[in-house]
Each structure stands twice: as C-alpha cells, then as structure tokens.
C-alpha cells in the first residue's frame, strides 16, 4: 500500500465507525473523546525524578508494568468485591505463609482493620460500636514497647483503644490485664526496644493474646513477607506501594484466618464500620497482587547490586569535584536500602541549599536533605536513564558553587 492509499484508508475509518454507531442504539453515548492528555502539565503539576525514596507524600513508588496491566484488565468487568478479596486474599496468603490475607488501603489501614478485627471478633454489632468501646464489653488496651510508639500506633488509637507502653518484660507482664486486647510490635524499631520478636511472642502466647507486627516499609528482603508469619505473629501489616511497587494506596493485612475474617467485617464493601472509608477497588486489589507476585519472583541480589552500581555512578560523579565526600551510609532502621550521603568542604564549595536547587532545577529532582546542607540519595525509585541525570545535576551544582 502506498502512502497515499494509507492516508485515504485512515480518513475513511472514522466515517465507517460513525455509520455503525448510528445504526445501533446499543452504542454508549460518549462525549467526544478527550485528546490524549498530559495530566501533569494540564494541572501545572511539578513532576520529578525521585532520588529520595518511596515516601507517601512523594506519591510512593511508580507502579510496575504488571501492576498497571492488572489494573487495566480488572477495569473491564464487574464482579463482587467480596469474591476478589476471597480469591486474591487466598493467593496472597499462600505466597506469604499465612492462613489468610486481605488487601487494604495502605499499611495504616491494615493496622486499623486488623485492630478492629481483634476487637470485634465475628460480631457485627461490636464492629459497629468501634471506636466507642466504653460499655460495649470490648477490650480496650493494647500493649507496646515505648520505643515502638512512633506515630503509626495512632492507627490503633483510631479504633478506640488505649496504648499501654512498657519497657521491660517485667513491665509487660504487669501491664497485661483482662482489658488487654493485643500486643503490638513495630519491626523497624525492634533494635531500640528491650524485648525482641521471639520474647514478645512467647509472652503473648503465655497469656493467650493476639500479636500484630507492623513491617510497613521493611522490604527488601522479600523474606520478611513470610518471616513473621513463620515466627508466629497473628497479624502482619505491610505497605503495597513502596518497594513492592503496587498501587500506592494499598497494603496487606495477613495472618490468622479468624482474625482476617473479623477484619473484613470491619472493611468495605460492608458499611456501618470503621473501615468503610478505607475503600480499595478491584483494580487496586489485582494491581497489588501482580506487584507482589513480581516482587517475589524478582532476583533481589541482582537488584541490590544494581542499586549499588547506580550509587557508584552518582558517587563517582560527585566526588570528582574537589572537596566533596560521597559515601554509602550504614543501613538505616527504616527504608533499608543503599543510601549515598554527599557532603562537602564549605571552604571550597559555597552551597547551602543543594536539595532545593535540585528540586528547582530542570528536570526537578527530589533528594533527602541531611545535616549541614548535605544530601542523601537513593536509587531504587530511579528509572534507568535517570541515574546519569542525577549524577550530572549534582556534579554541576557542586562545580558551580566552587569558590
């Protein structure tokens, strides 16, 4: 077909389509399709290269291709949300060595729903009373270590419970009463508390109390996904929109079958409960499942090496400037991924606001600001072609500020 003929056919196509339409009442009436839109520039939204991390305020992570494919496929058909949670939950549970699982609207939502499930059990009336526990016969206290009371425990308080903080095992034993509903553990603060996982579980078992662990951002390693189930925690909460790269507004609550069933009593599509405002749609549930599957099948050693290689590229570029120090810092408590810190000799380089300059540059780059104007850089949220851009921009800013 010659070019001219192709053009002719193209011109004819819409017309043929229109004829079909007018002949059939079944066609859905659509407004003229919008032009292919660049949603970000349409709204004047600053987009950026993310060399900072999968922070909620930075919109988490970019979904991987599989997650988006799953979302697109899920959007094509109606089905029952309960069915989706049943079936996807069962798959997730088997991947995670858990009895049961459900997809939630983030890790915070998982904390709240898990807590609500513990409080309500299988009783819909109790579910409708949360968070007003007084006079309901529902237990009203959760015990955690002082070092684990970091702000996320607020999720539990949203269910109406009081947080009882303890430091030693002895205090823990003393704090347990007939009002104790659950013992809560936050994984990333483990090293700051006196009581470690195994002892926490042992004491809970002794007093026949359910345990929950929050490991929201504690991937990699992927083994953490099943480690805490294997250890014996009754409920495990993890975020879906961070290293797993599922939809940013998803998380997983996994654990004991009766507790997950109770948690679902507190969640949409059911109403009259504390979770109704925490909607996840079928697209998100499928999207998260595919992201999880892909994450588990990925070669994390190879990926780790890739992150380090990327760090090396950026470190080399920065430290090629005289007076600049670029080094990989020891793994942090949370977000345990290779992190590069870049600092400089202030007498050689006059630069106080590198993070701001990178943000305001073109393309905009987000990094974490550190002490004394230094910056921290991570590479797990970068696209392949962005590594060199980040390296170059940092180098340029440092060079430009040389005395």
């Amino acid at each position, binding site marked *: 077909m010659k070019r001219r003929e192709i053009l002719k056919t193209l011109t004819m196509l819409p017309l043929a389509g229109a004829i079909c339409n007018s002949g*059939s*009442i*079944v*066609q859905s*009436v*659509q*407004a003229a*399709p*919008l032009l292919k839109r*660049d949603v970000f520039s349409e*709204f004047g*939204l600053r987009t*950026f*290269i993310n060399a900072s991390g999968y922070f*909620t305020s*930075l*919109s988490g992570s*970019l*979904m991987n291709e*599989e997650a*988006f494919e*799953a979302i*697109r*496929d*899920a*959007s094509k*058909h*109606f*089905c*029952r*949300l309960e069915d*989706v949670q049943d*079936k996807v939950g069962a*798959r997730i549970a088997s991947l995670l060595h858990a009895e049961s699982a459900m997809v939630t609207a*983030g890790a*915070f939502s998982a904390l709240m729903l898990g807590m609500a499930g513990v409080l309500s059990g299988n009783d819909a009336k109790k579910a409708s009373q949360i968070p*007003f526990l007084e006079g309901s016969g529902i237990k009203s206290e959760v015990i955690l270590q002082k070092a684990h009371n970091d*702000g996320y425990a*607020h999720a539990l*308080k*949203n269910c*109406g419970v009081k947080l009882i903080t303890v430091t030693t095992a002895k205090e823990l034993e003393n704090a347990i009463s007939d009002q104790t509903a659950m013992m809560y553990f936050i994984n990333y603060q483990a090293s700051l508390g006196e009581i470690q996982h195994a002892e926490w579980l042992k004491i809970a078992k002794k007093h026949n109390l359910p345990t929950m662990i929050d490991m929201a951002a504690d991937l990699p390693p992927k083994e953490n996904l099943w480690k805490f189930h294997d250890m014996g925690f009754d409920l495990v909460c993890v975020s879906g929109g961070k290293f797993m790269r599922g939809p*940013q*507004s*998803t998380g997983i609550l996994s654990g004991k079958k009766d507790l997950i069933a109770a948690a679902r009593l507190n969640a*949409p*599509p059911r*109403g009259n*409960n504390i979770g*109704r*405002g*925490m*909607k996840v*749609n079928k*697209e998100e549930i499928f999207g998260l499942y595919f992201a999880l599957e892909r994450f588990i099948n990925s070669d994390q050693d190879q990926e780790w090496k*890739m992150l380090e*290689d990327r760090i090396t590229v950026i470190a080399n570029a920065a430290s090629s400037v005289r007076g600049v120090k670029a080094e990989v810092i020891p793994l942090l408590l949370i977000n345990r991924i290779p992190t590069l810190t870049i600092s400089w000799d202030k007498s050689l380089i006059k630069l106080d606001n590198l993070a701001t300059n990178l943000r305001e540059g073109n393309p905009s780059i987000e990094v974490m600001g550190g002490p004394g104007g230094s910056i921290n850089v991570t590479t797990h949220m970068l*696209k*392949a072609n962005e*590594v060199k851009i980040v390296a170059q921009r940092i180098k340029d800013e440092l060079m430009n500020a040389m005395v």
Partner: protein
Amino acid sequence: MKRREILKSLTILPLAGSMTAAAAPLENVFSAIAPAAKRDLFAELGIRTFINAAGNYTVMSGSLMPTDVMDAINAASKKYALIDDVQEKVGAKIAEICHAEAAMVTAGCWSALMLGMAGVLTGMDAKRVSQVPNLAGTGMKTEVILQTSHSAGYDHALTQAGVKLIKVETRAEVEAAINENTAMLWFLNREVHKGQIKHEEWLELGKKHNLPTMIDIAADVPPVENLWKFNDMGFDLVVISGGKAMRGPQSTGILMGKKKYVAAALLSNNPRGGIGRGQKVNKEEILGMYAALHRFVNLDHQKEWQLWEAKIALIANAITSIDGVKTETFIPPTDNNMPTLKVTWDSSKIKLTNIEMGERLRQGNPSVEVISWEAPNTIRCGMHVLEAGEEKIVAARLKEELLKASVKS
C-alpha cells in the same frame, strides 16, 4: 519479509535484548525478566464476572471506568508528583466546576463524610487533628444534629470522628437541640422527602445559629446540576461518591465546599497521619476522578437518557407478550435518578420468586446481576451500568427464564 524470516528475527530479538541489559548495569533488572504471557485475571483466580443490570453498588464493584478515566490513570502512573500538589491543583479544578471554594478527592463518599466532619471539628489546629476521635476534654465540639429520617446508616461515618448524633424531627426540636457543643448540622439529600425540614430551612437554621452545614449527595447524580446545586444553595460542605454514575475509580469520592473546612479536612488525611491516613487515595485515583468528572459534566445527558429508554424498550418488548408479565419504567426520585426497568409477574402464571429469578440469572452464562431483593415477584434492571449490546443478552435471558417458569395452559 517472509514468514520464515520473521520467525528468525523473533528468535534473535530476546537475545539482543539480554545483551544490552548485560552491557548496562544501570538497567532495571526487572526489564530482563521475560514478560508474562497475557493473563486473564478473573479466570485465573476463578472470580465470577457478570453483566451488571443492577446498578452502582459497592459490593458489585461500583461502575466500570471509561477509557478517558483509564487513560488519566495510566498517564498519572508514569511520574512522581507530590500528593499535596495533586490534591491542591486537582481540587481547585473540581471546585471550579462544582461552584465550590475548594475540593479534595477522598477514598469514597464515606471517607468524605468523615474527613469533612474532622475538618469542622479541628480547624487548622494540628494538635486537635491528632486528638480526633477522642474529643472528651479537648475543647472540640461533640455533637451533630440531623433529622431522624436522615439517619440511614451513612451518618455512622460522622461518629467515627468522635461526635454524637442528635436526632430531631421538627424545627422546634432543632432549635432546642442546638447548644455550645453543636459542631454541625447534617443533611442526607436522598431522604429529603421523608424529613419535615427541607434544604432551605435547614440552611436557614444553620445560618441563624452560625453552624456549618453538610449535605451527603452520594449517589444523587444525575442530574448533573446536583454537582453545583448544593454549593450554590449555601451548604458549607458537600460530599459525593466518585465511583457511581460519574464512573470514576470506585474507591473515590469528593469533599467540596468552604475553603476553611476543606483545608482543615486535608490535615486529617494522608499523606499526613491522623484519622484519615488509612483512607489513602493515590495520584492515579485523584487524576482518574477528575477525568471522570470532566467527562460526566461534558456528556450529552439527554442522549444518555434516551439511550437508557431505548434499552428499556428493547428488553420490555422481548418479554411483555409473555402471559402474566408486566413491565414499567421506574425512575428513583432522588438517588440513582435514572430510568430502570421494573418487571413484575403474576405468581399464578409464572412459578418463580424474585429471589429465584435473581439466582438463575446469576448462575446463567453469562452471569447477569439484577435487583432481585426489593419486592415479591419483581425485579428491577438498571440500564446505566450496561455495556454496549448487553441489553440484548439481558432481554434474552429474562425471556428464557420467564418462559421456563410459565405454567403451561
């Protein structure tokens, strides 16, 4: 290129790809994994899909997102942006369309109710934000007044912010109930016909006592004008679902109204901590919601309505000749205000309960969901949730089941 040559180059391609990957350490390792074969998620997981001839029910996954919405979601998924920026910019556009001062996208209408309530209670006080829903001793107000007939289950969302619901019936009761602990007057549009006090009087009472007002219009578009009508009337906050007739993401809603309340509601919402942190919406949902709103406002609603009527006629024509069957168009007056087909049958001529009918349609192939739980020997079919051409299938299946259950004379 001949078939053989094509095959040859296909064999070569993956190899070339992996060579490139090996040469570039910066390449994401994920891209080296062979893409999975195209999967049918629903079949793979054994999840029943169905033709929805019922409506925008949350349990039935709401609505299907049109192409415009999916395109926006796809585009939104490609880049990072600050969630605060997205809420601010998209909120401003939504507000403009809906004649509100400000707006935000929430994780459904329930979430909008709760966050709006929280905003009214806390104002811009971060300490108060951290105290909700435990209001005792905080100095925050603790009561919301509504009409008894408006207490239909959704008011439960307000209590999650810590308030008590004070239910009244008459104007005198409202005035008597108002005290220094009154935080807000709440109105459920769907039940307007049942309550003694209508919109204007409710607003007048709010104004007289200097109390903010909120109206819930969750499923009350169309008519499209309802998107701005209640802002124009003077309600301080309006909440609506995004995943129903508007066909945005099922897990979205909109909170709109006075700037000071929306700004305060944002403080309780993600990406911050607080009572709304668990009600996450991502940038894809926010931009998808906007695309749905934009599409909905620009739709030819008259044409849509005609289309639904044509579908009703097609299905009705297929079954009215069956002995004992009656069909009529039923339009719910307030919520889900769109034409539906009501089918009623004489139980002496057709031996089938409404529940059995629902079950048979559900078990058929393809599976069809209708509203089968409302009245004896009656089902109702929503048209606005049907995809193109599905009305023919619904007509054929209804006819088949009605005939099968007909008593032979």
